[in-house]
């Protein structure tokens, strides 16, 4: 039997998932939003390794976007939620509520 905790996203992953609920966003937008919500800065490296891991678990999907002069001609990579991501976020919410208030066993 699979342990429930294994399916749960980490705290950082959960915040990223909740940011992506409003629609697809690219790396820098996610980083700024994360900083705004949590008050903590997130380095680019940490963000992208997390996003890569989440993509491997198919919690999120990605597509390459447009390039611009500001980015030196580099394209943006947009990330969006997937069904597994929504499920993981719900599970995290229920788990946290249970852990904090004992509402769910």
């Amino acid at each position, binding site marked *: 039997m699979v342990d429930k905790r294994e399916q749960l996203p980490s705290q950082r992953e959960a915040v990223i998932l909740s940011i992506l609920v409003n629609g697809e966003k690219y790396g820098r937008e996610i980083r700024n939003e994360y900083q705004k919500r949590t008050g903590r800065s997130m380095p680019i490296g940490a963000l992208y390794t997390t996003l890569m891991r989440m993509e491997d678990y198919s919690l999120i999907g990605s597509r390459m976007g447009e390039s611009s002069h500001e980015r030196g*001609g580099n394209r943006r*990579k947009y990330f969006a939620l997937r069904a597994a991501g929504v499920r993981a976020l719900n599970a995290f919410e229920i788990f946290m509520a249970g852990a904090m208030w004992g509402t769910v066993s």
Partner: protein
Amino acid sequence: MKPRPKVLYNKGYYRKNQIKSQDNLSKLYKQYKKKGFPNYHKQRDGNNANVLNAKISQETLDIFIDGIRSRFGKLNEEAETWLRYETLFQMNKWKDDEKRFIDEIDKLRLETHMKDIGIIQTGDDKNTLKKPTKEKSFVRQSISTSALSEIFLNQTTTDKWLTSSSFWIPRRIREAVIGDIMEDCHELRALGKKEYRVRLHILWHLILFALSLLPTAIIKAFKEKVVSE
């Protein structure tokens, strides 16, 4: 004690004709752009060989400028796709152009020029005169060193350093990561921060990126080891 071997390029023979550094190259190009490219027809009116040489030089430069203009046409139409090549595929893209330019230059209208001036055409003449060294090296080096990107696209040395030092970042996220850092740099510059501050930002983020990749690399290596055992 053995005498030091004499090396040709130490005599300054090649240095006279070749433009070595990228800075010199961009300076020269800016100079050309301001004053206009040198008109050899008017400057040199010595013997017939000199006139022919001048015509060849003029034609090489003309071909080069035409090529750049055609590039600019493309740039206006599809700026984004063109700029994309200014990252990692830049060198390959420019090398194609270099081939094209050099091919064109090799097809110079030597024979018609020779007839115009009245030189009798011999094999030796053709070989000796078919060496517009300064202009040819200018074309070759300006493309291979991508000095033009600095002139036309206002790319700073920091940007170039950033694009070239990204080979160790995993391919599937390389473009996004470098783009994000570049966007940060753009914002910092807009805020009026100095260049050293921008460079520190880049360095800090690249170090953190390398550190964040380490654990995943170790885990991956460990897994592979387990599987192989």
